[in-house]
């Protein structure tokens, strides 16, 4: 915390003002990391960040600051898409993996059906010709597609995001934030 005798926090240093004892920024913007506040200030503005923090219970402010820093960094690196670029990229990855999984699951099903001795007596079911296998595969992929978004690249409106992920409100917000906030490799 700031105050007489102690070093002003990074925010008050940047804003060139006295760092009050109850400075809202001081716990989250230590003086040894000036870049952290600078980037948040550049994207969101100090007064907006202050307002946002004031509206949050104290125990949630650290996470909020970390996510704001993450978003601000993303926006500076990619001024057009910001975090949305990363979301689009990850969404694409999820779609591709789900397709691969559908293919693999169809394949294992085929193998199991061919190898299962009990079913081999029922020729109508088991003699899967090429068309049946393709149908099985397509059914698997369709089931997979119902839950995934096939849009590639960023051509999405916020409504499309919401329809695929449910709105942020309905998501589990108790997740751990440390890992995603440290995964800078998304943009390297």
């Amino acid at each position: 915390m700031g105050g007489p005798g102690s070093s002003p926090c990074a925010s008050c240093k940047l804003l060139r003002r006295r760092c009050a004892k109850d400075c809202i920024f001081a716990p989250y913007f230590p003086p040894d990391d000036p870049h952290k506040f600078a980037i948040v200030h550049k994207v969101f503005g100090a007064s907006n960040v202050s307002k946002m923090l004031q509206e949050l219970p104290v125990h949630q402010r650290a996470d909020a600051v970390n996510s704001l820093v993450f978003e601000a960094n993303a926006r500076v690196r990619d001024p057009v898409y910001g975090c949305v670029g990363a979301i689009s990229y990850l969404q694409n990855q999820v779609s591709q993996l789900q397709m691969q999984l559908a293919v693999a699951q169809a394949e294992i099903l085929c193998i199991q059906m061919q190898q299962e001795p009990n079913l081999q007596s029922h020729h109508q079911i088991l003699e899967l010709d090429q068309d049946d296998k393709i149908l099985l595969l397509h059914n698997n992929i369709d089931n997979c597609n119902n839950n995934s978004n096939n849009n590639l690249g960023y051509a999405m409106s916020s409504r499309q995001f919401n329809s695929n992920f449910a709105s942020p409100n309905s998501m589990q917000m108790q997740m751990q934030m440390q890992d995603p906030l440290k995964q800078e490799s998304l943009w390297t």
Partner: protein
Amino acid sequence: MNPKRCAACKYLRRRCPKDCIFSPYFPPGDPDKFACIHRIYGAGNVSKMLQQLPVQTRAEAVESLSFEAKCRVEDPVYGCVGIISLLQTEIQKTQTLLARTQAEIAVAQAKHSQNPS
């Protein structure tokens, strides 16, 4: 002067000039879009951001800012970073399942090649 003010100038209660930087992206019929962006970023910051971008990329920038602002309003702690976290978890889960299924395929194929029927 633009006779019909854009949503931004309406919200800011000011004249909407002919070269208003906001007006192409904030039509008067959608006041919430600018209100949300203004709440999170502030008009001045958005204006600065747009001025620094080539004109052809500004529409996309506004859409992404709008999405992020909406996420932040709905989730004041994590914003859209919450979505990123969920996606990463989903990727890890799917990768694990895929690896397991591929291993099952390999085992089944090995079994089949050992005992061809």
